[in-house]
Structures are given as structure tokens and as C-alpha cells.
């Protein structure tokens, strides 16, 4: 697993080097202001965790990084260069690969086609060059198995997979192609314990290979297992911004929930 990653990773990456720097980023959807004044750095070889309540603006934040929506305010620097992405292609060309919460896959297409969509293997560069179908099938199957996902038929439309299986395909794809920066939007939400473990391992492996990782989650436990830097969003603004050395799991949980709710809840529910 780590081999794949290391082999795909950019050799030029130096740990700690800033890949993405956001300063004062803000974003409005028409009349709705989803994000304001966000500062965030993604460093090579580190995992930046973004946490926050529902609707806090986490997905919006990563959509800006990955070129899906342009930002309205602030500046976005990639490798030191000031940029506003106008399409995801641009972001991908800067080596930023993303797994979206709600834009993962094209339901009607086969699993392996989804896996390679946008990064197909062809036997040449001319427009009519054939796809390397066999190879693509093999790789897709292999990569999914590594995540513990055995799809019944790699040729079935991805829409017939379960929600979690779809998510796995999207993650496996991003990891497989993620060259410099890997962005994961709640990757473990729909996953079982085993699959979550695999994703976390991948995340760690990506970090160790020198990639910058942005990890969005609701689960402070998962975040704390891999994170180097933690940001909590609240109502579109930053509520906490600390490195691993400055913050413990307890504080993180408390901050996320406004109190150690789970324990409290357990009392309340009387079990």
C-alpha cells in the first residue's frame, strides 16, 4: 500500500514545506455567507484536520481549495503562487486531488471507469488511442481489494454498489492519483470500522510519503489518530486553530461538542 503511494508521490516534496496557504478566505452563495476570514496552511508531510458542526462550512472550504467554487474574499496561494482556481482541472494540475462528500461518482458508469475517470490510461497520446482496459480493470480491482472492498463485478455500474462501497472507490481513486495534496471530505463517515481503519492507514501513509493531507471529519477520535494540525470551524468562522502539540483529544472533543456530550449523554440515556 505504502509502496503504491510512495511510487506515485512527487519526489520533490520536502516535509513541512507549505503547499497551500489560505489567508482571509471568504465565500458567499448568493445571499448566504458560508465562510469568512479563514486562514489555513497545508504543509507537505502533515495532516491538517478540519472539524466542525453540520453546515459550518467545511465542504465549502475544500471546494475552494479544489477549484470547484472560486472564493470571494482573501487569497489562496499554491506553492507560493497566488491563484484563483476556475476549474477542478487546474487544481488537479497543481497536484490537488479531492474526494468529495457529495460528488463522488458517475452512477451509470462501471466501477473501473469511475476509478480512472479523468486520468485514463491510454496506449498513446493521439485522440483515438485505445484505452488500456484490461490494465485499468486489474488496477482498479487491486486497489479496491487493498481497501478491503471486494466488489462483485468490477464491470457493474457503480450506482449498484452500497453507499460505503462507492465512497471507498472514490477514496481509493484519490489516493491512487493523489500526487501532492490529498483532500478528503468526511471519508470515514459512511464506512464501517474496518474500512475506516484502512482509510486512516492510507491517510497516514500519504503523510509519510510526504503529501499534504486535508482531512475533514466529525469524529475527533479519527482526527486525533492522524492529525498534525486541527482547525475547528463554527458558523463559517474559525473557532480553534492549534497544532497537535497544543491540543489534546479531550480538548478537541470538548470543543467540537460544546462539552463532553457523549459521556453526558450516556448518563442521560441511563445505560
Amino acid at each position, binding site marked *: 500500500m505504502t509502496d503504491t503511494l510512495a511510487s506515485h508521490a512527487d519526489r520533490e516534496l520536502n516535509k513541512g514545506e507549505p503547499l497551500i496557504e489560505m489567508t482571509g478566505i471568504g465565500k458567499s452563495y448568493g445571499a448566504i455567507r458560508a465562510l469568512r476570514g479563514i486562514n489555513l496552511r497545508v504543509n507537505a508531510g502533515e495532516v491538517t484536520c478540519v472539524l466542525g458542526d453540520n453546515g459550518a462550512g467545511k465542504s465549502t472550504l475544500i471546494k475552494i481549495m479544489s477549484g*470547484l467554487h472560486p472564493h470571494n474574499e482573501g487569497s489562496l496561494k499554491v506553492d507560493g503562487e497566488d491563484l484563483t482556481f476556475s476549474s*477542478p482541472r487546474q487544481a*488537479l494540475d497543481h497536484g490537488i486531488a479531492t474526494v468529495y462528500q457529495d460528488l463522488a461518482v458517475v452512477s451509470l458508469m462501471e466501477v473501473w471507469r469511475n476509478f480512472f*475517470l*479523468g486520468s485514463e490510461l*491510454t496506449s498513446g497520446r493521439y485522440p483515438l488511442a*485505445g484505452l488500456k*482496459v484490461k490494465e485499468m480493470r486489474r488496477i482498479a480491482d487491486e486497489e479496491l481489494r487493498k481497501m478491503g472492498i471486494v466488489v462483485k463485478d468490477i464491470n457493474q455500474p457503480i450506482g449498484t454498489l452500497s453507499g460505503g462501497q462507492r465512497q471507498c472507490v472514490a477514496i481509493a481513486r484519490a489516493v491512487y492519483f493523489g500526487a501532492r495534496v490529498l483532500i478528503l471530505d468526511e471519508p470515514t463517515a459512511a464506512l464501517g470500522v474496518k474500512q475506516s481503519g484502512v482509510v486512516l492507514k492510507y491517510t497516514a501513509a500519504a503523510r509519510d510519503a510526504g503529501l499534504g493531507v486535508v482531512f475533514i471529519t466529525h469524529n475527533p477520535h479519527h482526527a486525533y489518530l492522524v492529525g498534525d494540525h486541527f482547525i475547528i470551524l463554527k458558523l463559517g468562522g474559525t473557532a480553534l486553530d492549534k497544532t497537535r502539540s497544543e491540543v489534546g483529544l479531550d480538548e478537541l472533543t470538548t470543543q467540537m461538542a460544546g462539552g463532553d456530550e457523549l459521556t453526558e449523554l450516556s448518563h442521560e440515556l441511563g445505560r
Partner: protein
Amino acid sequence: MPTESSNRVTLSLSNRILARPEVGALVAAVIIFIFFLSAAPAFRSAESFFTVLYQSSTIGIVAVGVGLLMIGGEFDLSAGVITITAGLVNSMLCWNYGMNLWVGALVSLAFCLFIGFVNGYLVMKTGIPSFLITLGTFFVLQGANLGVTKLVTGSVSSPDISQIDGFDSLSAIFASSFKIGPVTVWITVIWWFLFVALAAWVLQRTRTGNWIFAVGGNPDSARAVGVPLIRTKIGLFMTVSFFGWFVGMHLLYRFNTLQAGNGVGNEFLYIIAAVVGGTLLTGGYGNAIGVAIGAFIFGMTSLGIVYAGWDPNWFKAFLGVMLLLAVLVNLYVKRMSTARKVG
């Protein structure tokens, strides 16, 4: 963990064949073919078969483009009139300015591609559904065909161009025919087969094909993984225009003259062919061979009724029933293929 193979499936060969999108259409085509063989004695000759193929090819060539476009999630209602526009531009330019027909044909090609580009550009930039944008171009072209022809020639049909330089070579390419025994084979049939094969290859075996499915199935997701959405869609509109131009050239060089008001209504035949052939109206699913079979079903039905000598007043009713039957058979076959249990 139990063995994984416990509910892993391998589809049998017959099931895999049945699951292909064009099989339903093929079965429908065979049924209709056998039906007309028995109902219409005049249908039972190689000549008739090739007349049907010819008729299918003039629909089918544009339908290939329209099918690709529909898989890519868009419509083009201007695909019918653009054939006439293509021919008119070529013939009137050359007639009016005494150009060689080759120059006119190339100018016409450029013009058609430009219209395709405009269609695609407007759809992508404004976000207005292509149904509406191309309905607009449909009306505009229809009006312009008539208005310009009237202006240039004073009548509603284009001048005869068969005496202008370049006619022979062009008509050899676009509108020649040859004999095999008693049977006349039109070159459009050959072109049609070529285009279908090419489109089938592109769809299934190239990166572009992958993108076409993706932009039709889920444009947002496709864009998110870096598929060049705008470029792909504009390209598809231009492909339709190209095929429209091609058929326009055929019409011009076969008939030497064109009626400016024609071509209207054909846009739906293309869509029908595509959908009967298994293309999803909402995009993201379909197949070039299916579209070709769809065009063949349409050609066969519309001429079969004539061969059978049925009351022409009921023509449309027969056509409607055949269409419904074809679609139902198609559906039934598709159901069969997924309902069959394994093991």
C-alpha cells in the same frame, strides 16, 4: 471472515451478451424484419433491403452524432435543418460567386462547425438547457434558409449546381452508388457503417468516450475529477453539426438542388433512432451500434409500410405502433438480462 466467493458472481456469457445496450434494439429489429418479410412480398428482395439501408443511412449518419450528444446529456433540435443549411451555403455561394464547389463545401463545413460551436458555447455559458438553445437555432436556421434562398435565387429552392466545377469529384464522395448484381448500393451506407464503427470505438475504447459518458451521467462529478466538461460538450455539438453537414452534402450532390424549407422534423427522427437504440434520454448511457439499429428500425418500418401497401392514411398509426413495439421489446430484453439468476 467467510470466503469471499460466497456471493461473488461471474455472469454467464449469454447474460453478458444480453446485458449490452444494443441487444434489445437488435431483437426488436429482427422481429420487425421478419414481420415485414411475411407481410410485404415486395420487401423480400435484396434491392428493397438496400433501399431500406439507404433510407436508414441518411437518418443514421446524423443519428450517430445525435446519439453521442444525447449520451453526453444534451439535445440538438437544429440537427435536421442544418443539413439543408449546409447544402444551401455550399450551392448558393458557388452559384452566386462562381466558386469551385470544393471551396463552397469547405466553407459550408466551417460554417456548420461554427453553428455547432455556438450551440455548445451558449449552452455551457448560459446554463440554459440545450433543448431551448437549439430550438432557438432551429428556428433561426429555418428562417434564414428560407429568407436567404429567397433573397439570392428569388425562389425557395437552390439553383442546380451540377454544371459547376468540382461537382463530379464531390458527388463521387458524397452521393455515388455502385451496383452489385441488380442491387444499387449507395455510398452513404458505407459511410454510415464507417461512422458507426468509429463512434463505437470512440465511446467504448477511448478516453474521449469515457468523458462523454461521464459528462452525460453526472456533469458535476465529471468536472470535479478533472474531465474538461465544456470542451467535451462543445465538441459533441460540433460532431452533430459535422454529421449534419455530411448528410447535407449528400442531399446536395445527389439531388443537385435543395428545397429551402426541408429538413424540418428530421431532428426528431434522429432522437427517436437514438432512443429506440437504447440511449437514455437523460444522458450517460447508450451505444453507437444501438443507435444505428434504431435508425434501421425506423427506416425499415417507414418503408416497410409502403412495401406492404397499407392504407397511407393510417401510415402514422402503424409507425406509432411499431415504435412502441420496438421500445417494449427492447425493454423486455433488458429486463430478462438482469432478472436471470445465477446459481
